[in-house]
């Protein structure tokens, strides 16, 4: 009947508009607090700087990072690696490639690894968490047991076990291993906030008005549960970079290193770190600063979105 549906729609849109209104004002007030927060500003500047660097790297880099132009200065016998010299401010790496160009271009791969791993982990976690949080009951129990088991394996061991399933290591297997480790984290987080939403007044109100389950989940529960997930994603961007570096360090990084990535450069530098610490220093410094940038933004986002932390 027309009247019935139109009333339902009206109430639905009303509930929605009030929800989105509070959403907007929440976001707006969060943004006001963020703009004044020096922690956020420092973090955002760092990220902005490195994204810019990644975009401009092909222009800025003086040399091709894959070409062994200083190979004649490399000697395994005398353990020599090209030092800093005219045209090569950082010198060369173990294979005689220009270190400065590799560090510059490494920003591209490293940011790519971080973003892809986070997106994949987020996608998997959202799917599992939404399933568990939306339906509850046995679906919830099953999903959460799987998540518990995944969480009980220390993250690095889990990543390594996943890496071992591939007969050859590429950048993609690294990304996948790092991403899968984050799935249970996202799933658990989302499920928790969704469950809280399920019991909240606006969802009960929508349910009592006969709004369809699908519309409740996607219009009322999910949007309101996303805040903590966004915060977590920002933090995971940092974790992904560090985890990828750890995998490289354990020898599970991509076998092919013609396209530079900081974690891989750092991992590969371990054998020469005592004699040539600068090979590890530059990629490590970049990793630390970028990871710090993501962490600062994540932390300040968390503070801004959490009403309890407004102090």
């Amino acid at each position, binding site marked *: 009947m027309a009247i019935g549906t139109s009333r339902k729609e009206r109430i639905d849109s009303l509930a929605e508009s009030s929800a989105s209104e509070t959403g907007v004002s929440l976001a707006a007030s969060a943004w006001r607090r963020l703009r004044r927060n020096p922690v956020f500003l420092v973090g955002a500047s760092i990220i902005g700087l490195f994204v810019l660097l990644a975009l401009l790297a092909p222009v800025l880099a003086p040399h091709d990072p894959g070409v062994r132009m200083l190979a004649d200065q490399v000697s395994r016998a005398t353990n020599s690696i090209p030092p800093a010299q005219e045209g090569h401010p950082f010198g060369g790496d173990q294979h005689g490639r220009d270190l400065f160009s590799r560090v510059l271009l490494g920003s591209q791969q490293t940011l790519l690894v971080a973003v892809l791993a986070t997106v994949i982990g987020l996608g998997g976690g959202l799917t599992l968490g939404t399933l568990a949080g939306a339906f509850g009951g046995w679906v919830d129990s099953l999903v959460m*047991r*799987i998540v*518990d*088991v995944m*969480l*009980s*394996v*220390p*993250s*690095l*061991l889990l990543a*390594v*076990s996943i*890496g*071992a*399933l*591939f*007969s050859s290591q590429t950048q993609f297997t690294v990304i996948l291993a790092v991403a899968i480790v984050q799935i249970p984290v996202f799933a658990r987080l989302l499920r928790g906030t969704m469950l809280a939403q399920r019991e909240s007044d606006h969802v009960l109100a929508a349910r009592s008005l006969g709004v369809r389950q699908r519309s409740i989940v996607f219009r009322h529960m999910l949007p309101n549960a996303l805040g903590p997930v966004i915060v977590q994603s920002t933090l995971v961007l*940092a974790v992904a970079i*560090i985890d990828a*570096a*750890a995998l490289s*360090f*354990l*020898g*599970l990084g991509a076998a092919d290193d013609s396209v530079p990535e900081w974690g891989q450069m*750092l991992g590969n530098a*371990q054998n020469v*770190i*005592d004699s040539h*610490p600068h090979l*590890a220093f530059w990629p*490590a410094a970049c*990793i*630390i*600063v970028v*990871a*710090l940038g993501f*962490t*600062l933004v994540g*932390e300040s986002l968390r503070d801004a979105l959490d009403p*309890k*932390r407004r*102090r």
Partner: protein
Amino acid sequence: MLRYTVRRLGQLMLVVLALSVLLFAWLRALPGGPVSALLGDRATPESEAALRADLGLDQPIFLQYWRFVARALTGDFGTSTGVQRGTPALDVFLQRFPATLELAVLAILIAIAVGIPLGYLAARRRGRLLDNLSITWSLVGIAVPVFFLAFLLKWIFAVQLGWLPASGRQTGGIDATRVTGFYVLDGLLTQEWDAALDAFVHLLLPAIALSTIPFAVIFRITRAAVLDVLDEDYVRTARSKGLAGAVIRRRHVLRNAMLPVVTTIGLQTGALLSGAVLTERVFNIPGLGQALALGFERKDFPVLQVVILASAMTYVLVNLLVDLSYAAIDPRIRTR
């Protein structure tokens, strides 16, 4: 409390069961299948056929799983193919476990001993210099890759300054008696003080490197929890009674603030085991982490199997203990 314990033990069994299924599936999903994974390069046609029969690969999958569980229950996880060739995988694990446990325990002790007092002080001096410095420190601590920090510490304090040993668990010349495999504990038990001190000194740098992330987390949770509790109505009630500041802090603030911190400490077990893998490699400590790294390098899946299973079980067990001790502090759980 008893019912709570029983229920948590039940959950523990479920997780271990699920873990065994996962591990079983993992072994079968490895490149080359379980036989070549378990035999490594020692494989001969005869040994492959023998193992195939032993695993029951021609039988239905649930029977295979049952055999897997039965073997695991008797401690048979196969023979090491790369880390310590020919040694049963379980023995490899047992020999190396004490080194890792020793390192992890010292690291978490450092993290607790520094993190909780600093978190508490930072909360009380919110917004002042100490607070801002500690927050910065903890944020940087999270951003530094553990193994790079380990290298850095080793380079500064062992290589450049020579204050602390750079690798291993004990100086070669020391004549130490082995009892438990925990070197520091052994030294104390046998009253070989020089050996105990020497083992402890070897632990310091790796433990400090390993403690950074647990420290950062414990510090931040403590700070946030203390801030929350200071705002609670019952602290105002305590002040309205005229109680001395020290009594309010000890009895009313600290105790409540410790509740979330206790849970956090348990959850750090995973980070500790992950970090130990990296730290042990840098400091060349013959523990589980090194076994794991070597295991992957040399494709020693029998050893990996045990290490993964044991790490997960340690994590679950520690968290069970933490939950039980949580219940002991929080009457709302204990008396339910």
